[in-house]
Each structure stands twice: as C-alpha cells, then as structure tokens.
C-alpha cells in the first residue's frame, strides 16, 4: 500500500517508508538497515553461513561488533574455554570481513546496547538491528530498532536489508508526572503488568506523553529496552531537545554542515497530528509507586507496597495456572507483603539499567550506608566508558565502601551465560529485564526492580525502597 505524502503518518510509518528498498509490493517490504550491531553469542553461525555460500559482508562500515554476553566481569582475562572460543571466533570473523570490534578489555567495550548509543552511532530515524531482543533499547533515539535471530543476522550481513511485514502500531501514553523515585523501569513494569507479557504482540510501540518527555536519554533507553518484555517488536520515542543534547558531543555524531542537515531531518521525525495508531494504551503515572515482580515473567509485577497475589483470584484459567506455577518456582506464599521478602543477591547492571544515571541513583542510596551482611551486591557497569565515568565521579568508592563488588562491564548476571550465575535457590533483586525460571542460575529466583530499589534492598536485606531506609 502506498501512503500519499499528505496522509498524516506515525513516526514508525515515516521511518518505514524512508527505508523501503524499491517499490511497495503486496508482500513484505525490503527494509534497509542503517546499523547492524553484532556480538559474539549469536553471530558465529551467521558468518559460517556466509563462508559456506562464498558471500562477502555487504557493508562492514555499517556494522559494529562488541564482546559482551560471554565475557567475565571480574577479570579482563578470559579463562573459560568456551568463552575463549566464542571471542576468538568473533575476532577472526571481524578481522576477515573488516568489521570494527570492541574487544573485552578495550576502553570502549561494553554491552552492545550501551556502547552503540554512547558512541553516538544510533541517531534519530535510523533502522538498527542486532541479534539480541533488547535491541529495542535504541528506539529511545527515535530509531526503529529490533532484535533478530541468527538467520536474519546472516541476511543483514549479506544484503544490509530484511524482508519484513509492516508492523502494527500502538501508542503508549504515559500521562501525568511521576512521583520522585518512580523511574522508567517502574513505568514499564506497570505497563507490562497492565497489558501482559504478550500485550503488545506484533506491534511497534511509540511512547508518548509528559512523563516520557521528562525522561533523560538513559531513562528513555530503559523504557524502550523493556518494550520486548511487553511482547512488542520494538518501541520508540520521538526525538527532541533531550535527544540532540545527548548526541551533541558524541564521537560518531555528524559534524559541521552535516549536523545541521541531520537536525533538519530529525525535526520531521514525529507522529503527525491526526495520524492513526492501531491501538492506544494510556497509563496515568501520577499515582505509580516503585514496582517489583513476584513471578516468572515481567508482566507478573505489583507495587512494592502490595503483597504476593493469590493465583485463585485470577479469572482466566491459563493465567491462574501460570501464577500457581510461578509462586511454586519462586517459593512464595500468596498474601506475603513484598517488603517481607528477603534477598540474597543484588545485581545492578544490564542493558536495561547499567548506565551511569542508574549507578548514580544506586550510589545516592548507598552513600554512608552498608550492604546488609546477608547480601552480596554486584555492580556491573554497562560499558567500560560508564565505568570510567562512574570512577571519575567517585561512585565506585561509594559502592566499595558499602561492601558491593565493583566489576568490569558485560551482560553478566542478567542472563547467566558467563561465570556470573546464582547458586541454588538464591533470590536476587535485579535491575535487569527478565525474571524467567533459571535465567540467573539453574534454580535461582529473580525479582526485577529499579536501581534505587535494588540499592535499598541491598541495605535492608529484603525488598525495600529508599523511603523504607529513611524510616530506619
């Protein structure tokens, strides 16, 4: 279907139309990809496929690779033999095809979704893909960004395009102003609890409203990162002054006259008045309080002030069965106040909440306080640049003085693909994105929280908000 210029369009439609290769057809569109982010864990088979077919990488200059999923965060030396094999392979593949790679130990290395933005390599209106579902993070810049499997990684390496059906669109209106201490993480857990872990299935979300405009770029990245946890294909936020201010001093930004031309383009990147979304969801954030998950999918979340729900109260049989299973796995009884749940480990990091603003929020809570003797706290910066910035601000001293571990960067305990895993049935308050069974360790239990709640929990030894600590 051709969309005439005069028809009001959503931001997603504008980006889509601007990246369609050739004329529109009845079938899927061929969409051009502006930036392909690559990491060691989902690319090896794609490079093998190219090799077998004798195909080159079409645009190594639009491809950037990092090592993040498998790397240790307690050392700059990789000793695990499988990790060594993984990074050796990505190094060989990148060298062979002329792809820029930030290796473990490089000052620019980090989690792929932290590194791209901090370089300024993700800009408004771009299409961005990566073999990782949390690629939705980059939507914070007004880019259309989504995760792909390894077959599609190979397809993009070979063609710099993907054949895709035009997605449906959903407006998510966050109205009102959040109370102090209520973060992008809480807004997204509230959204996912409201619509369910599959509530945005097949849609690209556009986050709108006063509460979104008020977020920093870090907060917007947290928000867009969690789009996939609501089942969405992607999520994005129209660029504004906050976006351009963030990009203004990044190394890969356009400069000189090119910056002016880019700015002129970025100003067109908004949903036109009168444009129609397939669906709209409205969440009033004024009354929200910090959120925490109780179950084994990100939609199973409640305000920290509430209690573990009773599965029998769910009218839907599938939801009831899922809640029973979740409570069994989590070792929780219905009616238990969330604040009474004791925690063994606190993980601060990940592509969701591993940026410097997240570390600042946690450090603010921990300053002058101690991590409970019953709790182990890991602080894993999202990138080596985040680590350096935090050290310049002295945040590492706050963490170390409180008794937390100060690590190098990587995906770490978010997915437990590396050496950072929880033993036994340990219970973790985690700033990451998934509370699935076994995610952080074979039988480990995860509660998703914001950085401030994570830090407060570390001090209290049970799920807590900063205000709980003030009460003593």
């Amino acid at each position: 279907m051709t969309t005439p210029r005069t028809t009001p369009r959503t931001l997603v439609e504008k980006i889509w139309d601007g990246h369609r290769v050739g004329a529109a057809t009845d079938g899927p569109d061929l969409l051009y990809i502006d930036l392909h982010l690559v990491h060691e864990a989902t690319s090896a088979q794609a490079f093998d496929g190219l090799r077998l077919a004798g195909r080159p990488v079409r645009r190594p200059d639009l491809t950037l690779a990092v090592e993040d999923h498998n790397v240790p965060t307690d050392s700059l030396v990789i000793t695990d033999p499988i990790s060594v094999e993984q990074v050796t392979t990505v190094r060989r593949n990148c060298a062979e095809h002329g792809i820029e790679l930030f290796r473990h130990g490089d000052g620019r290395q980090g989690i792929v979704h932290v590194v791209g933005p901090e370089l300024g390599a993700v800009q408004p209106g771009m299409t961005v893909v990566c073999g990782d579902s949390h690629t939705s993070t980059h939507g914070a810049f007004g880019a259309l960004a989504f995760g792909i499997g390894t077959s599609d990684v190979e397809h993009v390496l070979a063609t710099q395009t993907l054949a895709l059906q035009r997605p449906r669109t959903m407006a998510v209106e966050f109205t009102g102003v959040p109370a102090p201490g209520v973060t992008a993480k809480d807004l997204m857990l509230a959204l996912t609890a409201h619509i369910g872990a599959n509530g945005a299935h097949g849609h690209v979300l556009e986050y709108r409203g006063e509460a979104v405009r008020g977020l920093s770029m870090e907060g917007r990245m947290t928000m867009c990162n969690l789009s996939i946890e609501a089942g969405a294909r992607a999520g994005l936020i129209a660029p504004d002054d906050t976006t351009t201010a963030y990009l203004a001093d990044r190394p890969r930004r356009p400069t000189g006259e090119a910056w002016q031309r880019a700015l002129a383009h970025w100003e067109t990147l908004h949903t036109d008045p009168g444009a129609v979304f397939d669906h709209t969801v409205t969440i009033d954030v004024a009354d929200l309080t910090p959120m925490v998950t109780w179950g084994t999918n990100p939609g199973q979340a409640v305000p920290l002030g509430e209690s573990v729900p009773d599965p029998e109260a769910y009218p839907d049989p599938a939801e009831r069965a899922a809640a029973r299973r979740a409570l069994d796995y989590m070792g929780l009884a219905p009616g238990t106040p969330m604040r009474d749940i004791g925690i063994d480990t606190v993980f601060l990091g990940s592509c969701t909440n591993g940026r410097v603003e997240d570390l600042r929020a946690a450090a603010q809570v921990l300053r002058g306080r101690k991590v409970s003797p019953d709790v182990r706290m890991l602080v894993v910066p999202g990138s080596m640049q985040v680590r350096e910035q935090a050290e310049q601000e002295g945040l590492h001293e706050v963490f170390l003085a409180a008794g937390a571990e100060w690590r190098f960067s990587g995906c770490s305990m978010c997915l437990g693909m590396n050496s950072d895993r929880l033993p036994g049935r340990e219970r973790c308050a985690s700033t990451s994105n998934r509370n699935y069974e076994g995610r952080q360790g074979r039988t480990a239990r995860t509660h998703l929280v914001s950085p401030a709640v994570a830090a407060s929990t570390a001090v209290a030894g049970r799920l807590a908000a900063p205000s709980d600590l003030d009460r003593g």
Partner: protein
Amino acid sequence: MEPLTSHTGTVLPLRRSDVDTDQIIPSEYCRRLSKTGYQDGLFARWREQPDFVFNDPARAASTVLVAGANFGTGSSREHAVWALRDWGVAAVIAPSFGDIFRRNALKNGLLAAQLPDEDVAQLMARAEQDASYEITVDLAGCVVRWPGGSCPFEIDGRARRLLLEGLDDIAVTLERQDDIVAYEQGRPAWLPAFAPTGGVN
C-alpha cells in the same frame, strides 16, 4: 533447504503459556558455534521432571508441539528453534508466538501455526488423552487438520514461498541487488559509518 509442503505427526501437548526461550533452551546450552547439536539443551530444566511430556516414552516419536499462548517469548536466540528441530519437532501450534521466535522458526523450516484459543484447547485436550492423536500442518493449503476438523492459519507469503520451493532466503533478496544499490545511492551522507578496520581494536 529441502522444499516443505506439509507435516503430519503425533502431538507433544505442553499445557503452559508464556513458554520463554530461556525454558526452551537455557543460555548455558547456547554456547556452541554450530547450528546443530542442541537437543540436549531442549527444555533441559523441565525434562528433569519425570512426568514432563518430553519424557513420555509413548511420545518419543511425536513431532507436533501444541502449547499455550505466547510460545517462544523472550530472547532472539535461534538456538531455541535449532533445539526443537534437533529433538525432532517439526511443527508448533499455539494461540500466539513471540515474534522473533516465529520468524526464526520459519527461517529453519519449523512450521509455527497460530490457531484460535478454542482450537488449541481442543487439540491439547485430545492429545493429552491419546498419544496416537495425529495432526497435519499443511503449508501448501495454509490449514491445520485433525480428525474431524480443520482451521486455516496465516503465514507471511514470502516465508511460505521460500519453504514451499526450498529457496535460499538471501539469494532471493540478492535478486533485488539493483534496488539495494539504488537505495544506497540516495542515503544521506551524514548517517554514521565505521571505517572498516580490517582488524580488531
């Protein structure tokens, strides 16, 4: 890939919703460099339970997985599809799928058919009672058939054609090389690009 038109098999009923890719294959099993050999990781945790459906000897040769809503939600790991395929699963039927999983499945010839809740519930109930209950997923006709019933399903036309004709996805796209070159010539020069390094940092 070999052309694929239809698959018939007995059923592995998995009465669970939101089965995420971390359950289908935990991350520690995703560290191989090949596209095969993932069957050991398939539902590795859940298979520790003796009564888990994948441990049922009567269903050892079953090839059609019937599951609850939002099957394959979560990560982009194609290993989830490879693990199902390596186990011998040829088709998955559910009321809904994680988007990336469904796309990955079709790229690997694993038929992922979305059917209405009530049909899935009916198939689940019958298959739980009868390990010899057979279902056909007919890609050519875009229809799922079972004894005494059938239901059409939707599938991306391009993915369907690639599977039916056994075509190479990338080769089909590269037929449009001229369009891609023309698009590239019109891209704004200010968009970010990395200097190919020919090496590593």
